């Protein structure tokens, strides 16, 4: 049977840990955790050798060390992961022009119409796997292939590591039915226990339930679960530059855009926080301009070393200028009465809107030089690369901020499906 759509989900196996084992043969075959070696923070990735001990990503490092005594811990090298990730993504683009990167280590590929080049799904996935292995010098991926993003994603997780799972469209619902509700997209631990309390243990249990009942119990989430359990997921694979998020008729986009970083070390001084905000404002403004959006408000988020999140927000004259975002952020910063130390500094642009909101004139508006300068910097970056030209102010900031990987594209996904 011909497939109307062919969607692959490819996921690098224990990416950070595998990357470390790739680069250092002495680590191969050994239980290994990537994360902070100071014993604080969480496990970023556990190698497959460590997983039988019950450790996994996002587990507090201290707990992981208790579960798996003697495990090797190496600090993350994000630059290296980014480099490897870029190779992997480039390989994906050899297979399809439509690749949607979800994070450094996973992506959806729309393979519709490529059967004539790469063969049937199983063979296609096999070639993808081999190509990544060759391009990276030894990293493995797991691949799921089906006709929807959702089933492809569940598929890639089905036979990890280094596995391929092909689920033909006409078998998708039956195949899903055997999976646990923990495989439902959008069901976190809390929702899972709610589902189980209501008697839903497998996705098949959900497929068998009447829609009205699910909606009564879980609201709009119930409706989504119902669709997923019937292997329905209309989300397309979005390639580079394809807009995400719908605009409503008034031109305002729901949701926000944020740039936040968990810091390599906690910060206390206002100067250090400002350096992070400066960086974040630049990033956000660049992304706003590239998408022709304006921010109608700014939100600053600080997370204390004991994991309390504090936020302050304000509205502003719609803007896409880093200068304006930063001015607002600095004012908000003054409104925090928490001394710190802080482990995370974040800046968000909210009340996103289109150019139409510029129609209202402001009697005290003073836009001009800053915005124009930034637009020129955009062009320079585009031609000569990011960071080719910087403000003198940011040179000193660079010594304070160690540049972590750019994961902004992940944050853009934040409001998808909500």
């Amino acid at each position: 049977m011909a497939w109307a759509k062919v969607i692959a989900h490819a996921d690098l196996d224990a990416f950070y840990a595998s990357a470390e084992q790739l680069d250092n043969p002495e680590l191969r075959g050994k239980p290994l955790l990537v994360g902070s070696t100071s014993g604080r923070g969480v496990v970023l990735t556990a190698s497959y050798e460590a997983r039988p001990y019950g450790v996994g990503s996002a587990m507090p490092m201290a707990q992981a060390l208790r579960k798996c005594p003697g495990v090797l811990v190496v600090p993350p090298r994000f630059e290296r992961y980014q480099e490897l990730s870029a190779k992997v993504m480039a390989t994906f683009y050899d297979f399809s022009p439509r690749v949607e990167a979800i994070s450094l280590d996973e992506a959806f590929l729309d393979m519709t119409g490529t059967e004539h080049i790469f063969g049937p799904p199983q063979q296609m996935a096999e070639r993808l796997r081999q190509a990544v292995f060759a391009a990276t010098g030894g990293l493995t991926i797991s691949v799921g292939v089906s006709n929807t993003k959702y089933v492809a994603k569940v598929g890639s997780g089905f036979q990890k590591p280094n596995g391929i799972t092909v689920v033909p469209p006409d078998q998708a619902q039956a195949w899903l039915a055997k999976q646990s509700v923990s495989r439902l997209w959008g069901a976190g631990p809390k929702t899972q226990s709610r589902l189980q309390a209501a008697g839903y243990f497998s996705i098949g249990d959900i497929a068998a339930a009447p829609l009205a009942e699910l909606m009564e119990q879980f609201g709009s989430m119930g409706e989504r679960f119902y669709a997923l359990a019937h292997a329905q997921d209309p989300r397309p694979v979005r390639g580079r530059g394809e807009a995400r998020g719908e605009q409503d008729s008034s031109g305002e986009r729901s949701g926000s855009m944020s740039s936040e970083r968990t810091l390599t070390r906690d910060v206390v001084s206002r100067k250090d926080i400002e350096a992070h905000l400066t960086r974040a404002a630049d990033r956000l403004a660049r992304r706003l301009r590239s998408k022709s959006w304006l921010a109608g408000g700014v939100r600053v988020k600080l997370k204390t070393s004991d994991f309390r999140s504090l936020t302050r927000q304000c509205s502003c004259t719609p803007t896409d200028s880093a200068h304006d975002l930063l001015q607002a952020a600095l004012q908000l910063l003054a409104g925090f009465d928490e001394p710190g130390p802080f482990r995370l500094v974040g800046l968000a642009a909210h009340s996103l809107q289109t150019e139409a909101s510029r129609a209202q004139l402001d009697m005290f508006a003073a836009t001009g030089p800053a915005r124009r300068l930034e637009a020129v910097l955009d062009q320079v970056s585009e031609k000569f690369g990011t960071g080719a030209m910087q403000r003198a102010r940011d040179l000193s900031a660079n010594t304070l901020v160690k540049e972590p990987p750019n994961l902004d594209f992940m944050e853009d996904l934040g409001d998808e499906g909500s």
Partner: protein
Amino acid sequence: MKFSTDRETLLRSLQLVNGVVERRQTLPVLANLLVVAKDGVLSLTGTDLEVELRCRTGEVDIQTEGEATLPARKLADIWRSLPDGSSVSVEIKADRAIVKSGRSRFTLATLPVADFPSIESGPGNIELNMEQGDLRRLLDRVSFSMAQQDVRYFLNGMLLEVTGDHTRTVATDGHRLAMCTLPASNDGSGVTHAIIPRKGVIELSRLLDEKDETVSLRLGANHLTVSREGYELTTKLVDGKFPEYDKVIPRDSSRSMVADRETLRQSCQRASILSNEKYRGVRLLLDNDQLTIQANNPEQEEAEEVVAVEYSGDHLEIGFNVSYLQEILGVLGTDQVRISVSDANSSALVEGPGNEDAVYVVMPMRL
């Protein structure tokens, strides 16, 4: 502490004081009211550290003097829900407050009085007395134009300007500006400026009614205290520089139209229904003695209103946020309204002919 009273005596005070208490607090005690019974007077105080309101009344029967802090919202909710005319007693036993009325009995948790913060308002630089109605007018004519959560924090409030011969309020969010001026013979010379934060303005306005009564204002470096019979409100002032408002009030009224205020208000109201829900833009077309208001929305639905006006200038098209026009037309007290503009990219002056105590400036929208 123990006192008793009837429900109505304290109902309004409780509701007013409760208005100051924020729903989410940084300190637990800020969710509470400070209740003090002493020398035959009962006082209730609520605060959010920015605005503090104290009500005092002698119309309660104090059996035992004392003080305590009680949960504000719960106390007000209980009070409101009691039947009209109930008599109520409040008694503190250890760290509990017992509220009794008829066959109802409530035991509330208290927090230590020592934790309850008070705003230290410092000495006053200027003292003014004015009619309650005048102060209310100064607030209500402009407060709707205050900004909200604006990054230009000094706009999130209202300017109070006191000179030897007038008292003036100004509020603006950058899109529109409202100014109200009342003549006064104030003590002292020179000009004093203070920015009252948004919340202070709103709570103050709630406190004032139409009664013939003098209120006194004490303006210090960082605080404003307003006292009227039984009530005292203290608000912190916004530490910032308010924009030079007289620079944005247009002086060029080369094109000026006069219309019946209510007719224009209703036309705007109807046109607004089909304006863009978010941006609220309408197009005003001025021709000889005729104003046409046009609105359309993304669904391509359209409204057109024609209003007879006095206008003798040349043809002009200008866009505005219709909500701004509606709000101004709603608070102007005159039968007629005059709108003066110079061109489509400059601000418009809106005023009531013959009653110039309040004037409004609206920035246009690009069409």
